């Protein structure tokens, strides 16, 4: 059953169009993550669903009902804000109970709901504290608890973890995943610009950029089969390396040239019209391996080595403002700066993008 449905939704502030032609259906029980660079309109879209921004075009339906003009409280949604937005002068319990009190629920009902949420989130010991007496992670849990108590049709999260430090972020991310698991029927929409969060939490990811949806799909699909250069580079860290090439031969497989003269066969179909056109050859840093054989993709000098123990990241052709070409190898490698290395990759891991940025696989 469709839970949230956006049809041709648009948003402009005065003459500035921030979002256009957003079409999206979120099924009940899904956890959909909006990702995209800063300023692409993620929060705006979420806030439109919440009713905190007016919708300037298109239709928003929740559970089939048109919601464009319904005030936030009547939409059956709950929202968790980046800044937690806890009421600083109320205890944790009151924070969670506020919505129900406003709705004039009975005392018993409120207590039951709050206690249940507190139990789920292990907040019981803190119920009588004020938010300022809580750690960041606990505050975030209270914010989530406040959402749970409302028992909404749709949960909305706007970068709920971005104010936490790295360790806490990981821990809370896991908590959210578990929470979702424990409420399989609840629909969640989650905004982040951290793609690790997106990858780990989402049942589907919506990649937004410049007010448009670039691609929608399950995380791994986006990782393995990005629709365009933008998605390819946005998903995965470090970003996918892009090499400028020319198409030499087309067909079920495509032969492309590297600018340095070599050429390579990519097992991706191409059309005759592509021949001679410039293309981008995409390869993920983590798909690269070091090889001695002649069947290599590139030969480059190492500019910098980052040994993380678990992985070793090699930088080639680096310049300020441009990380250049990157390879990420698992484990520890004793590679020194300046070494010349041959890098290879399994051909099936390569990506090809046309001049319009669209992946050949998606045509």
């Amino acid at each position, binding site marked *: 059953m469709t839970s949230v449905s956006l049809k041709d939704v648009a948003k402009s502030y005065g003459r500035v169009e921030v979002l256009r032609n957003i079409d999206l259906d979120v099924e009940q029980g899904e956890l959909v993550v909006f990702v995209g660079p800063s300023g692409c309109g993620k929060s705006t879209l979420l*806030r439109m669903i919440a009713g905190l921004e007016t919708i300037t075009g298109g239709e928003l339906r929740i559970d089939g009902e048109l919601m464009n003009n319904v005030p*936030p409280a009547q939409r059956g949604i709950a*929202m968790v804000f980046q800044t937690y937005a806890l009421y600083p002068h109320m205890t944790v319990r009151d924070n969670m109970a506020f919505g129900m009190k406003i709705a004039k629920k009975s005392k018993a009902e409120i207590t039951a709901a709050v206690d249940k949420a507190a139990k789920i989130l292990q907040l019981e010991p803190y119920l009588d504290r004020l938010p300022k007496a809580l750690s960041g992670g606990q505050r975030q849990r209270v914010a989530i608890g406040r959402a749970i108590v409302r028992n909404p049709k749709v949960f909305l999260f706007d970068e709920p973890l971005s104010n936490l430090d790295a360790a806490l972020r990981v821990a809370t991310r896991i908590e959210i995943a578990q929470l979702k698991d424990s409420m399989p029927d609840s629909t969640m929409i989650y905004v982040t610009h951290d793609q690790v969060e997106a990858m780990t939490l989402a049942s589907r990811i919506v990649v937004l950029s410049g007010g448009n949806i670039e691609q929608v799909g399950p995380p791994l699909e986006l990782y393995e089969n990005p629709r365009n250069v933008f998605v390819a580079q946005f998903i995965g860290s470090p970003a996918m390396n892009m090499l400028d090439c020319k198409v030499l031969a087309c067909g079920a497989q495509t032969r492309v040239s590297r600018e340095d003269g070599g050429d390579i066969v990519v097992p991706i179909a191409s059309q005759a019209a592509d021949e001679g056109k410039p293309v981008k050859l995409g390869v993920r840093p983590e798909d690269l391996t070091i090889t001695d054989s002649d069947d290599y993709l590139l030969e480059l000098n190492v500019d910098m080595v980052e040994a993380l123990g678990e992985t070793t990241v090699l930088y080639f052709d680096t310049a300020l403002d441009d990380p250049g070409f990157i390879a990420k190898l698992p484990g520890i490698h004793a590679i020194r700066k300046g070494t010349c290395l041959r890098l290879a990759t399994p051909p099936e891991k390569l990506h090809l993008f046309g001049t319009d940025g669209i992946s050949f696989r998606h045509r």
Partner: protein
Amino acid sequence: MDGIAGRKPALIWAVHLSVALLVILWTLPTFGLLVSSFRDKDQLSVSGWWTSLTSTERNVMVRVPAPNDDGAQVLEGSVYVIAGNVFDEGGAGDISAFGISSREPGAYEAGEVVTTKDGERISVQESGDYRIESDVEMTGKRGQRLFFTVLEPPLFTLDNYRTVLWSEGIGKSFLNTMTVTIPATVIPILIAAFAGYALAWMRFPGRTFLVAMVVGLIVVPLQMSLIPLLRLYTDIGIGKSYIGIWLAHTGFGLPLAIYLLRNYIKSLPKEIIESAKVDGASDFEIFVKIVLPLSFPALASFAIFQFLWTWNDLLVATVFLGNNEEQLVMTGRLRELLGSRGGNWEILTASAFVSIAVPLGVFFALQRYLVRGLLAGSVK
């Protein structure tokens, strides 16, 4: 910051000294007033307050009983004598010199015997005992004046405060003032807070214009409003009443209140308000349950200013409340103690202090909010 290495202690001392200097400069005038308020009325206008802190030599005049008074003059043998002690009417000290004319108040040493041109022999002892002898019966309805110099220890009195604090009707005036100031502080804050919230967080046409208007109105001199307003009051039948003065203080304090409170309320995190909206709270509920508690620092700091202003106000109170016994406020009552020509500095000093007491109390009670509240209101 405190821990920076290699700081010169001299600098710290310089800071301490400068602050001490500033504090002295700023408190000295008030301190002078404080000392003066404990001084005797007559001394107040002849010597500086700082002299009252140390023993001072002072020229004093006493008038001995007039010869014509009954029993003032005794016949001792053949001489008529008027005797007594100069300190009979209070005071004490050692007399070093005395005089019988104001032109030379210290002409003679204690114990010396002076013969006047009328032939009277006058002497004043160190202890203050005086003796006037005359061979003939003395006459006159004015007693002889004796001048002497005496070293007076610091002399303070609570009389001024007694006059002020125990004056008739002061309790009532205090209540009147409270009746004026408390609603006149609370009402504008309430109205301004609602308006501030509306101007900060609600969307409606004309909002910018209203904000602009409020800023513009901060500067209207209130004297311009007195007559039209009182006329309005008379016309609609409010007349001179508490309601009238509350509304007047509200009106005059409102622009600044709205300006400050709007800025503060605007600075509250947007998400909190949105969160409450999502929770289903109406604007009224958001205001009462979220914004009001969170704006406490700003409310408190504005309260201080509005309170100081209404407390110290006399003009608005007398115009809109009147100065009947029934309606007189503290400032009016204290002013009344001064009399029609206002020359009683001693009362003025004491009453100035009495009238500072409450605002200072309020200030100290609320000052910790002052810093936070005002800043958020005025500065981004």
